[in-house]
């Protein structure tokens, strides 16, 4: 069961502002989903390794070289913030 306080704590970690109504709603909905996933406790995974890369690739490398200088400038232009000396200007951190 996820309490409203836990929901507020998670929302802060996730950088979301929730209304009191949303806190209530997510508390109920997430609890019901978490309750459902308890079904996995039926499975013995004692000596099972977790999987993340499903086709078994590992350490795929490529040359660390610049392929498109122009694109980086265009990407910086996508910012809704200000740009100064080809850098994104953000508000103060504190």
């Amino acid at each position, binding site marked *: 069961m*996820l309490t409203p306080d*836990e*929901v507020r704590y*998670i*929302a802060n*970690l*996730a*950088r*979301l*502002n*929730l209304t009191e109504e*949303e806190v209530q709603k*997510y508390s109920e*909905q*997430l609890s*019901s*989903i*978490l309750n*459902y*996933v308890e*079904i*996995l406790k*039926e*499975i013995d*995974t004692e000596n*099972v*390794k*977790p*999987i*993340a*890369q*499903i*086709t078994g*690739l590992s350490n*795929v490398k*490529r040359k660390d070289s610049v392929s498109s200088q122009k*694109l980086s400038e*265009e*990407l910086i*232009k*996508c*910012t*809704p*913030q200000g740009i100064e000396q080809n850098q*994104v200007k*953000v*508000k*103060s*951190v*504190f």
Partner: protein
Amino acid sequence: MYELTIAQAHAKLQAKEISAYELTKAVLERIKAVEPQVEAYLTLLEEDALKQAQKIDQKGDFNKPLAGIPVAIKDVYCTKGVKTTGASKILENYVPPYDSTVVKKLKDAGAIILGKVNTDEFTMGSSTETSAFATTKNPWDVTRVPGGSSGGSAAAVAADECLFALGTDTGGSIRQPASFCSCTGLKNTYGRVSRYGVMSYASSFDTIGPLTKTAEDAAIVLEAIAGVDPKDATTVDKKVPKYSQLIQNDIKGLKIGVPRDFFIKGIDSQVEKITRDAIDKFQKMGAEIEEVSLPMTKYAIATYYLLVKAEASTNMARYDGIKYGHTTQDPKAKELADIYAHSRTEGFGDEVKRAIMMGTYTLSAGYYDAYYLKAAKVRTLVKKEYDEVFEKVDVLAAPISPVLPFKIGENVEDPLAMYLVDAFTTPINLAGICGLAIPAGFAEENAKKLPVGIQILGPQFGEETILRAGHQFQLHTDYHLQKPVI
């Protein structure tokens, strides 16, 4: 002309019976006629498309199978200079400065991009109802959903608003809408097609694939988009077979497994009957049918949602109001952290917020082992089960959705009910294997014909076999030829 398949249009273009301009124009007129009812498109590129068509006509080279073929792109594929929203408010005005690899490949192959089609927000959903911008309707019954998340793609194909469309499949998002709208949909093996430039939902699951009018067309598109890409390190350096030729071989002696765990209590009786009838048809065509068991199936939804929501929460972290997309104008946002929170709160819809909350919780300190790690271990067992079953049989035939296309608004208030709809599609993404959705018949509800598809599943990189089974089935049936009345 808009009813043509890729293969048919290609033959006519090559023989100069029609021009790319005429074909594109015909499809654009069709879009104008049916779009008020269907609402599949978010962005239409009418002028661009006609210009592209004219250019190709001038060159007159139609040797490539996709040259001059009009296509709709799910709005999660970056298209250079064209708005790409992910159906999310947070990217409402985002115009990417680059093309996704697959879009670039289609352009190089001469395909004509008609526009961008609707999806659930960042592909999170099974009905296309979580889109921030439009509610796409099922062309077979406009009071029902087209499925999702590639609902815009499926509806556009079914309503002949394009010759084919691109979709994405993280847990069924190509196959389920294909089934709901009666089109063919190919979920490729993880790593078969590059995802560079396509918005991520759950990176260890996401795959790219086409929705088409026939299995043959799916083979043609796959040939054009598959292959290794240095920009997507998860693509596998394996030769791309000549799928469109290999599918011509018959299926005599093909071993088809029927997983009994997909025929459970709760499956719609018409879905079950249509699936069983399709399997009988395969048998009559010379396939050998064998019942098999995949007991982990009942754990798929729980495993899938734990892993996928966790990955989603990390992928959504990039939307911060700084790099691109929406940023808050709220004067209360004074510090950087406020900008993040305000921008995200204003920009994300309900389902995306729920995914972020769920994923952040299961990845947070103290819960990781109980949820994420546990599910990642169960995933190993699911994969093992499929590895073993494909030692016995060549492919599997199974239902796609336990339910018929449901009414708009029917499931939106109950997320768990919506998740359970994905019970038969998510195991395939857990195992990273491939699956092809094909039309298998029609159910009836309130005197309305509602499409039902089945999925043919193959082992990793077994696209050739499932496409062959699908194509051969379509040579012997006419479900895929039937059209909705709009």
